[in-house]
């Protein structure tokens, strides 16, 4: 989908909100791609981790809401360790997830997994619920 870059979107409150939630400065990223190079999950993601930052920089909320990347990201912190700008991308991913979750749109319905629930470690169930539902 073509996306028109506009002053309004680039200066929107949305970006400020993500910055406030994550505590990170979105414009600090210069897209070197080191985060994506180190991320163990990129082959399952539809956007690279830094492309998520790019979408935020441009105010492209639509892309952020439809991408699977923030939901695949398991906060492993490899990107943070690798980032030459010291950007905590995990917190940015969390802010993007929270954008959806705070509208009461869950990404997981734990009842679907009843076959396995009894065999999963409790930490798996609790953390999936914490990360993927509101």
């Amino acid at each position, binding site marked *: 989908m073509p996306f028109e870059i506009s002053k309004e979107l680039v200066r929107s409150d949305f970006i400020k909100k993500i910055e406030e939630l994550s505590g990170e400065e979105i414009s600090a990223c210069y897209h070197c791609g080191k985060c994506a190079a180190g991320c163990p999950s990129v082959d399952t993601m539809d956007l690279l981790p830094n492309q998520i930052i790019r979408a935020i920089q441009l105010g492209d909320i639509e892309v952020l809401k439809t991408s699977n990347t923030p939901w695949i990201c398991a906060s492993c912190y490899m990107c*943070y360790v690798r980032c030459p700008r010291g950007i905590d991308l995990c917190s940015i991913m969390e802010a993007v997830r929270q954008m959806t979750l705070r509208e009461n749109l869950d990404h997981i319905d734990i009842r679907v997994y009843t076959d396995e629930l009894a065999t999963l470690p409790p930490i798996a169930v609790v953390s*999936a619920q914490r990360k993927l539902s509101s």
Partner: protein
Amino acid sequence: MKEIIYYPGCTLKNTAKNFEDSAIACAEALGFKLRELEDWYCCGTVYSLTSDDLMHHIATVRNLLRVQEEGEERLTTLCAMCYNTIKRSSKRINENEDDREKINSFMYEEENDYQGNVDIIHYLEILRDEIGFDKIKEKVEKPLKNLKLAPYYGCLLLRPLEVAIDNPDSPSILEDLITVMGAEVVYFPFKNECCGAYETVSEVDFVVERARNIIGNAIRNEADALLVSCPLCAFNLDNRQKNVSLKYPDFEGIPVLYFTEALALALGLDPEVCHFDLHYQSIEELVKEIEQ
């Protein structure tokens, strides 16, 4: 005998009973006692990453308050998820008076306020910094000769830097432990890569690929078994081998052990603490070889 308060967390009472039992037994054999914190709560398993979300630190703070009420300033834990969550929360709350005040006023029904003085250390840090690997070496009764062990750190003991128990890029604490237990260290590049964590609930195929990469790499580097320190890593790298075999019929797996299980065997403790039935890949052969 030196005592330290210990926070087990939910999973050590459940699918990781072998982690708890072996850790308690090893501690005693090495001259310290893990005293379970009374009346503990689930830590929440993941550290809340949004700045405005104080709510999810409350469970942690209640646990820290219990430690304070027992007159102690240190807490230890085994599960890497508990460690990371409690350590990060405690740093935020201990170092930030505003947050602490807000949480204390929310917990108004508690008799005492949390003062912000409790620190968390991981069991491995006690082994390294307080017991010492030399002392452990002296206590090894059944060296794990001829065994090649691949240390798997995963994420949460090493990242982010503020809570790392060792160098996040090139840790050595598990390697040093493997060496004093008499086994051979297997160097493999996947040792600090994510196992897929909680995605195992809804994205099984994704975790199957992670497990295949990690285990496959350890096998290519000739590991006989993998050592872990997190019950979720253990699930994804051991139990999920079943799913890997279903997808890739010629996949051959290897056993996965908590580092405390390997240590219990090396110290000559009763192998029962390893609860054979809690392993997907059988560890019986391996135990037999050590016991001989």
